[in-house]
């Protein structure tokens, strides 16, 4: 009697465990059912992850995927939206679990980092079969996809930092709205002309460099386009030009006062409350994507121009900084060939042009961008943006994550924050940051 009960007991426990495990497994399958071959025979079905969940980009990508699915009958792409905050940790977890999506939109700055850690698939064998894949893309973007001379991604879209300026405000104070400031010195002159101070408060702020760019971009602009690391991976934080750039930023902060800046910054809204649209700020250094904000929120007659970031000194170059996204096949994906086909489609001139036209993104495909400069469906402003972008990309630097110090930025930012608070001089800040980052590199080597 007892024995029978005992075996019954162990059976129940086993069954219970199995049930528990099954219940936990079920959740996973929902997210990553990529092996499905679809209902209609030989069709390969692949899963595409991106973070475009709403608005212009979502509409554009869904239309493009539908076009792709109807254009051929071998590959069926399923679009899966993953929120911005989750997508890459989720994909990492799925790669570690051996059940990743087939194609994913990834950050352009960490392609090599993922390639090194075997999180992405080597695409060189497919790319080698192509005639001239390289010439499709802007050279500085193409460079980012290589790790040990093998390509691990295809560039998809990009961006660049430019100046937006309020032409009406320029005219009001007697500046020529067609000649934006070309050097840092000119920028300062212009800003002084545009400032409107009323007692203790500012009614209009001509320009403040950290709205909305990081000090790293100004440092790179001053230092001939060399970021915190040079091309060989040496730490180039503490250079005279970069110290200069930080001093320049401090001067601006002193001029308007840290309190003014902090309180304005905290009030900055988006939409109609945007300080550039409301006229509070006349010149704004910002990602060129900012154009979509203006398009959505600025009144019809809002009169603005775009210009390259001014030069540190005459002739030093309008160096700017950019980022962007690439398409990758996560490591362990089952149909890399089909995935590559789809990626190739997404980076083709026609599709890139379409995505750009619908989302106003700057595309990685050069021809697509140049086509958009004179595209009949774009208005003058839209064409101006693509013209500016195409020109600016020549002096735009991408700063991939250094493999020996992937998480260096908090070290540098901490020192610069302390400098902005007046706790140390720019020289001290960069000296300390240089030492800290060199120490981090040493730890990882």
């Amino acid at each position, binding site marked *: 009697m*007892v024995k029978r*009960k*005992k075996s019954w*007991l162990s059976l*129940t*426990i086993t069954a*219970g*465990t199995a049930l*528990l*495990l099954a219940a936990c497994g079920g959740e996973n399958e929902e997210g990553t059912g990529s092996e499905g071959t679809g209902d209609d025979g030989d069709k390969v079905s692949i899963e595409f992850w991106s973070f475009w969940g709403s608005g212009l980009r979502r509409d554009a990508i869904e239309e493009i995927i539908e076009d792709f699915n109807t254009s051929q009958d071998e590959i069926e792409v399923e679009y899966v939206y993953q929120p911005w*905050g989750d997508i*890459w*940790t989720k994909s*990492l977890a799925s*790669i*570690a679990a051996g059940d990743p999506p087939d194609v994913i939109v990834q950050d352009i700055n960490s392609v090599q*980092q993922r390639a*090194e*850690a*075997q*999180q992405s698939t080597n695409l060189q064998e497919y790319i080698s079969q192509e005639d001239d894949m390289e010439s499709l893309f802007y050279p500085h973007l193409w460079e980012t996809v290589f790790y040990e001379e093998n390509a691990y991604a295809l560039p998809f879209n990009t961006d660049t930092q430019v100046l937006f300026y309020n032409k009406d405000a320029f005219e009001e104070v007697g500046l020529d709205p067609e000649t934006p400031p070309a050097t840092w010195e000119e920028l300062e002159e212009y800003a002084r002309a545009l400032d409107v101070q009323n007692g203790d408060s500012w009614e209009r702020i001509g320009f403040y460099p950290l709205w909305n760019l990081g000090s790293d971009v100004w440092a790179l602009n001053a230092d001939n386009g060399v970021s915190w690391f040079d091309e060989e991976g040496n730490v180039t934080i503490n250079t005279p030009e970069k110290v200069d750039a930080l001093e320049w930023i401090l001067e601006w902060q002193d001029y308007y006062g840290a309190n003014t800046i*902090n*309180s304005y*910054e*905290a*009030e900055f809204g988006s939409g109609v409350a945007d300080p550039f649209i409301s006229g509070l700020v006349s010149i704004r250094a910002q990602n060129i994507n900012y154009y979509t904000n203006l398009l959505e929120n600025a009144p019809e007659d809002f009169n603005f121009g775009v210009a390259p970031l001014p030069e540190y000194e005459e002739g030093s170059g309008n160096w700017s900084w950019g980022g962007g996204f690439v398409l990758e096949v996560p*490591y362990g994906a089952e149909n890399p060939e089909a995935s590559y086909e789809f990626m190739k489609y997404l980076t083709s001139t026609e599709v890139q042009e379409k995505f750009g036209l619908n989302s106003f993104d700057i595309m990685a495909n050069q021809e697509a961008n140049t086509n958009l400069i004179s595209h009949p469906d774009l208005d003058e402003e839209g064409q101006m943006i693509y013209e500016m972008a195409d020109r600016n990309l020549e002096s735009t630097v991408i700063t991939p994550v250094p493999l020996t110090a*992937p*998480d260096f930025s*908090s*070290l540098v*930012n*901490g020192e610069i*924050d*302390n400098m902005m*608070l007046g706790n140390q001089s720019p020289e001290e800040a960069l000296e300390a940051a240089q030492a*800290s980052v060199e*120490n981090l590199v*040493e*730890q*990882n080597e």
Partner: protein
Amino acid sequence: MAVATIKQKKKMSKKQKKDALWGLFFVSPFIIGFVIFMLGPMLFSFYGSFTNYNLTSKMDFIGFNNFRRMFNQDELFWKSLYNTGYYVLFNVPLTAIGSVLLAVLLNQQVRGMSVFRTIFYLPAILSGVAVYVLWMQMLSPTSGLVNTILAWIGVQGPAWLFDPQWTKPALILMKLWSVGGAMLLYLATLQNVPTQLYESAEIDGASAFKRFRHITLPLITPIIFYDVVTSTIGAFQIFQEAYVMTESGTNGPANSLLFYNLHMWNKAFVAFDMGYAMAMSMVLFVIVLSLTFVNLKLAPRWVHYGGGRSE
């Protein structure tokens, strides 16, 4: 417990064996869950902390390298430990005091008390990103509610989340808002305090404060102890707040909100240095374990159990 009894008496009757098995059966959901989802990962990360594990391609044994780096070279490790310690030091006592006081207030016999109780408990059921975003607006330097109220009484409020000296106090303040959860525990305990104790104290002429100090407080010490232990553990694990309120883990101005778990997260998912992150989690485990041990050792000095100590 069942295991202990088996060991004590070498020979068990059939009935006892049967009972022990049934006992095990009833606790099996916990045991299975614990082994699969807690113990397994814990052992794995214990081993992982001695490797250069990066989730996908490497897992080589590197001895104590991760720990050596952590203590000798990683500047941000010490910074994050300091930030977390600061937070724990203020958060734990303040929330404990706050929730006890609130519970005492809400234990009065006043009409409509259930409405007040509901109102004060409400923040505890709101959680996550929505609350943090709300607080980011309330803490806004010029137009935020907090500084507006401070201005009424003639105080110029600080720039809260923008000033590294005030970022942690801002977070501690925010956490005080949601003491409702612990308050509920205290409230339940307060209602168990026998009223005749108060009555006899009142007859002896004890003031309200004395009644609180000598009757209420000693009788709720077990719950205070429980609250302090669990909230210390919870406070060491602070992550979400800092991650959300600093725009995806930028650590706050001058790294002032770089908490231990945030640094660990950065190491794991930004640098893919999972082995190092695992080593960090082991160190945190030891810190929390020893603090809990100290708490347990100190407990007999101030915690009063109604029925006397059981040992």
